[in-house]
């Protein structure tokens, strides 16, 4: 479960000698996603989608309000518990964030190795997943030797390989063609059916139409529309 309760986020920025300018990025955002729920996160560029996801994967902390991730209060988390919670969250970043010195295979294997899975398990899961995203022949390639779409598929594989309880994706189809996007959606819906809570930020209108799920619409840093409330009636 994910719950935001009156969450606000300010970025403080020192402007030379003048007093610190504080930028309101998010204001009083409240919503709840039950465990196993699926949400599209939509909104214009610069609305605050990436920032909202950052709060969910614990890379940012709210200046105001309360956040609960997978039933845990994110504010009161000791460093170690936060790390363990992060292992249960799979994230596809807008800029992929692959490790440049590791092969595609090792990048995808990373979360499993962190969880101290056996190498046999790692091998079977990683090769199967990379086969599924169409990268069977490129296990040994470094990210720099792959196209944007191929890197995106590696980052998707890395995000799902540990069967996370919360899956977050930031424009995951930005570099994919329709066929690949549909394969990705099969992966995500499969994960979702097994109980993973999913939030996907996207501009892809077709995807939102083809895979109906409640939308969370962000506009200028506020939650403009929580479709789940409408669907619930």
């Amino acid at each position, binding site marked *: 479960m994910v719950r935001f309760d009156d969450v606000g986020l300010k970025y403080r920025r020192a402007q030379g000698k003048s007093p610190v300018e504080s930028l309101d990025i998010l204001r009083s955002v409240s919503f709840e996603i039950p465990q196993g729920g699926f949400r599209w996160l939509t909104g214009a560029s610069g609305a605050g989608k990436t920032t909202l996801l950052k709060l969910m994967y614990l890379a940012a902390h709210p200046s105001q309000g309360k956040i609960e991730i997978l039933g845990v209060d994110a504010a009161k988390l000791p*460093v170690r518990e*936060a790390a363990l919670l992060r292992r249960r969250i799979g*994230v596809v970043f807008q800029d992929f964030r692959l490790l*440049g010195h590791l092969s595609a295979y090792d990048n995808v294997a990373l979360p499993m*190795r*962190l969880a*101290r899975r056996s*190498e046999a398990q790692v091998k079977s899961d990683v090769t199967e997943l990379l086969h599924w995203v169409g990268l069977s022949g490129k296990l040994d390639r470094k990210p720099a030797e792959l196209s944007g779409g191929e890197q995106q598929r590696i980052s998707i594989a890395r995000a799902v390989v540990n069967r996370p309880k919360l899956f977050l994706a930031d424009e995951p189809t930005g570099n994919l063609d329709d066929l690949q996007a549909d394969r990705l959606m099969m992966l995500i819906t499969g994960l979702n059916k097994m109980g993973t809570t999913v939030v996907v930020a996207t501009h892809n209108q077709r995807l939102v139409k083809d895979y109906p799920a409640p939308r969370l619409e962000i506009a200028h840093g506020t939650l403009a529309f929580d479709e789940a409330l409408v669907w619930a009636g």
Partner: protein
Amino acid sequence: MAKKIDHLGLRSAMADRLLPVLVAAMSFLAALAVAGTLAASSLAGQWNQNTGADLTVQVPDPGDQAVASAETRLQAVFSVLAKSPGVNAPHVLTADEVNNLLRPWLGQDAGQLGLPVPAVITAQWSGAGAPDALRAALDAVAPGTLAETGTHWAERVAALTASLQASALSVLLIVTLVASAVVAVATRAGLAQGRDAIEIIHGLGTLDSDIAGRFAARVTMQTAFGAVLGTLCALPVLFWLASLALPFTGVTADMTRAASLPPVLWVVLPSIPVLAACIGWVTTQFTVRGWLRRLS
């Protein structure tokens, strides 16, 4: 198995050879400082043993005529000494003995240099404190005569030793601080270089202790390696210094020089790499954990 994977890219991030080299240089200094302290204290010990009760009297121009007497200055001084309480077994050193004494400073045969060598009388001093009355009596018959007890020298040597040891200790302290600073700077450079990778694996839920541990393991290896290198480089210098010190330690030249390093040194020197490794590990742990705090 997973241990072989270099998740942080440390191999490239910290490929700089600079850290081991700097640590080697500092271990070299530390080895010299340690050896210096030990040598100073063992020398001081010997001085105290040998010379504590020694009385040495130097008579310049020994052949000249003494004051108000038909005797030579040397004869006059000797008879005063023989009569004085507290002075036992006075002995006029032969020319050979004087040459032996001066050889470390002046070379093979000091006599051939044509220097005005004073006569030297040695004796045992059992009087209390400084021989001031004796000095006055000697000066009266042969002006310019110098009388020194070993206690006087022993005190001076003790003071010298203490200040040498204090200097060596401050060298060790400074070396330790600089080593920590160098390790911290190198670690921070590694962190800055590997920043993206660290943020990524931190985001995937790697524990701070794991990240710090990987950095620390690498730095510990590098500092230990550098310190072994530096200490080994110091060895020849230490042997050379030990051979220079031979005449002062009462060991004569024909005795074997190979084992002339103090035995304590064979225990202390190997502890330098161990200490360096500890400094490396502790400093890296603190630096990395401090740096990671801003990510959480």
